[in-house]
């Protein structure tokens, strides 16, 4: 018995701890060579990195267990509640948070609002990483991951999910191509840069069309469940609301992401640009809130908001705190000029936007199924790991590639 434990410990150290340390060490040395960043190894830093690495380890263990023992072993999903956090958060909210990219790209390339260019690349990078990790989450979530490409082969045009799959697949490639000039700029590949640069405008237009299709269709997905999804959300206008909120929340995410990068990389903030985006977003979110009320009134379901149900409370939080309040706040120039206020309001919009997607995919179904599904710790770990992994990748790529305009200038001077 003791021998077994010792053997296991030795194996654990040899097979897991040593390779992990090696990978981290080599990775750190390489990163330091490439980027010139030195880590300070302060207690907070070590704790933070240690926590994140532990989270990633837990996520890897979860994925291994999912692949060997099935989804039932790691998730709380069941036959009455087949889709959960990984679809509601990673896929639906993930796509929504990338919504800023098609809006900003359209503003810059289609409508010629050149002044937004400085924040465009980081937004496209955010969206690209978001969509890539969305696909990773999908691969973990679906039962037969090796069949994920099958929609290419067997097209059921009546399936909303088929359309979403095709659009997400294509749009991720479009985002990669939209971002690729940054890579070629770093590598100084002139011809590749020129080709991708020339393709940018058609790609941007294609990206807007694809985004419109799948952002709305992520809402249409739930229209197949009449009588199951709570009437507060079940409306033929759900796809339109998804599209509107993808733009509003996507722009909120632009504010959050710019603020975080400005803090993280100790660089300046394009406050003027964010403020003018926020002004637009004030009207946009205000319109969204009014439309949400109007939709309930049109269907004669306003009375549901006065009911003491969990769903009504969540609706109020989602629309009141996530759309109406930010719209009112962003109308004030004082709020728009303050860096911290803009960050806070952006965070509120993003959080409530995520809540909206979870309301549709989880909480709104509870009124039919009962609260039989609450995500398991391992599901949350995978979601959190993907989220932090995305943030880490963003930080790494922002260091390596000319994502922000300031580094742009440094690079060109050699």
């Amino acid at each position, binding site marked *: 018995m003791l021998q077994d434990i010792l053997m296991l410990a030795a194996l654990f150290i040899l097979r897991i701890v040593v390779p992990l340390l090696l990978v981290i060490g080599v990775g750190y040395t390489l990163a330091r060579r490439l980027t010139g960043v030195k880590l300070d190894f302060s207690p907070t830093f070590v704790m933070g990195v240690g926590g994140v690495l532990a989270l990633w380890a837990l996520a890897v263990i979860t994925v291994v267990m*999912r*692949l060997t*023992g*099935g*989804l039932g*072993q790691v998730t709380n*999903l*069941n*036959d009455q509640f*087949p*889709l959960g956090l990984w679809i509601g958060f990673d896929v639906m909210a993930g796509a929504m948070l990338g919504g800023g990219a098609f809006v900003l790209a359209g503003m810059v*390339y*289609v*409508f*010629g609002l*050149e002044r937004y260019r400085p924040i465009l690349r980081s937004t496209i990078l955010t969206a690209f990483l978001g969509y890539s990790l969305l696909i990773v989450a999908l691969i973990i979530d*679906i*039962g*037969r991951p*090796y069949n994920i490409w*099958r*929609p290419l*082969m*067997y097209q*059921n*045009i*009546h*399936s*909303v*999910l*088929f*359309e979403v*799959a095709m659009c997400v697949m294509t749009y991720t490639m479009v985002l990669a191509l939209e971002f690729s000039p940054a890579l*070629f*700029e770093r*590598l*100084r*590949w*002139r*011809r*590749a840069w*020129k080709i991708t*640069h020339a393709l940018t*405008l058609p790609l941007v*237009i294609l990206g*807007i*069309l694809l985004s419109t*299709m799948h952002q709305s*269709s992520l809402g*249409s*997905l739930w*229209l*197949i469940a*009449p*009588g*199951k999804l709570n009437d507060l959300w079940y409306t033929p206008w759900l796809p339109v609301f998804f599209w509107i909120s993808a733009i509003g929340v996507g722009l909120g995410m632009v504010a959050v992401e710019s603020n975080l990068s400005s803090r993280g990389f100790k660089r300046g903030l394009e406050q003027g640009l964010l403020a003018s985006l926020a002004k637009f977003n004030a009207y946009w979110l205000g319109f969204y809130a009014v439309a949400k009320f109007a939709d309930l009134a049109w269907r004669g379901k306003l009375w549901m908001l006065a009911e003491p149900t969990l769903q009504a409370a969540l609706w109020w939080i989602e629309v009141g705190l996530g759309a109406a309040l930010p719209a009112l706040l962003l109308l004030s120039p004082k709020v728009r000029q303050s860096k911290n206020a803009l960050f806070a309001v952006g965070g509120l919009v993003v959080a409530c936007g995520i809540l909206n997607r979870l309301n549709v995919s989880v909480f709104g179904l509870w009124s039919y199924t009962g609260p039989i599904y609450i995500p398991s710790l391992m599901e949350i770990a995978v979601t959190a790991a993907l989220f932090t992994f995305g943030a880490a990748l963003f930080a790494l790529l922002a260091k390596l590639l000319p994502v922000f305009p300031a580094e742009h200038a440094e*690079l*060109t*001077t*050699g």
Partner: protein
Amino acid sequence: MSGIQTGTSSATAVSRRQFLKLSAATVGAAALTGAGVHPVRAASHVDRDAAAAMLIDISRCVGCGNCQRSCIEANGLHPTDAQLNGLSAQTFTFLERHDLPDGRTRWVKRQCMHCLDAACVSACPVSAMYQTEEGPVDYRPGRCLGCRYCMVSCPFGVPRFEWRNGLTPEIRKCMFCIERQRAGEEPACATNCPSGALKFGKRGDLLREAHSRIAADPDHYVDHVFGEHEAGGTAMLYISDTPFELLGFRTDVTTRPIPAYTWDIMSKLPAVVGSMAVVLTGASIITRRRGGRSGGHHDEPPWLTVDEPAQTDHPATDEKGA
């Protein structure tokens, strides 16, 4: 100002012509796809009268459980505890016991309803769930992604998933013994029902029989055939002497074919996206014509357009790299 305009007039004429051509093509394509797809609808091409169907008379069921046992045998299912609780990955048909307030007991056979316009069939992105010519909804595990959207879509909550299978989980449900049907046999449950509660046949005939049974004994039967209109019509038709809502039936289910709910939206997309494409193309052409900025130095990579030449990396060496 005017000089610039005349200078670019030929270019704009071309771009305007291209723009018109492009927009016409897009609108045409949108109209074509819209027109070509719409009449097909999500509706299946199943003949509603000739479709394979089953009449389930709840008042005749004695609760012997032969249907459930024969189903397990016919489909080679593994006995599990879950078979005592309801439908499962190893239970395609389940005899549900209902003890009524007045002391009577009724048994309701649960299985896939085999909707004529099945929600799962329209939901499946790869048509792994598909409607056979004869009507029953069959499943092809080979192309299944395991996305479980069919489970979300099913108005009756029928499909089950193999939650404990790591890499080859399947969606599991009653296939109406489609192989037996093709061999000229009845489904296992109908063959083995001793009380006459199950009757297999063509949907049109069974519907007429259901109504004539109700008409012959209106005091006994509830005047409703569950499945005649529910979810746009199902192959499983229930008649009962007890109100359906007391027997756990989803009586509030819509009578509209469920696939229509999403197809309503899907079918509008080509027109929306087509017109958006036209607007965006037009806007970008106008922007390009008006601004002209993007046509300038932006067409050269930024590291070649700085005022002072780069010291370390010479452009000439980079061109070779490309």
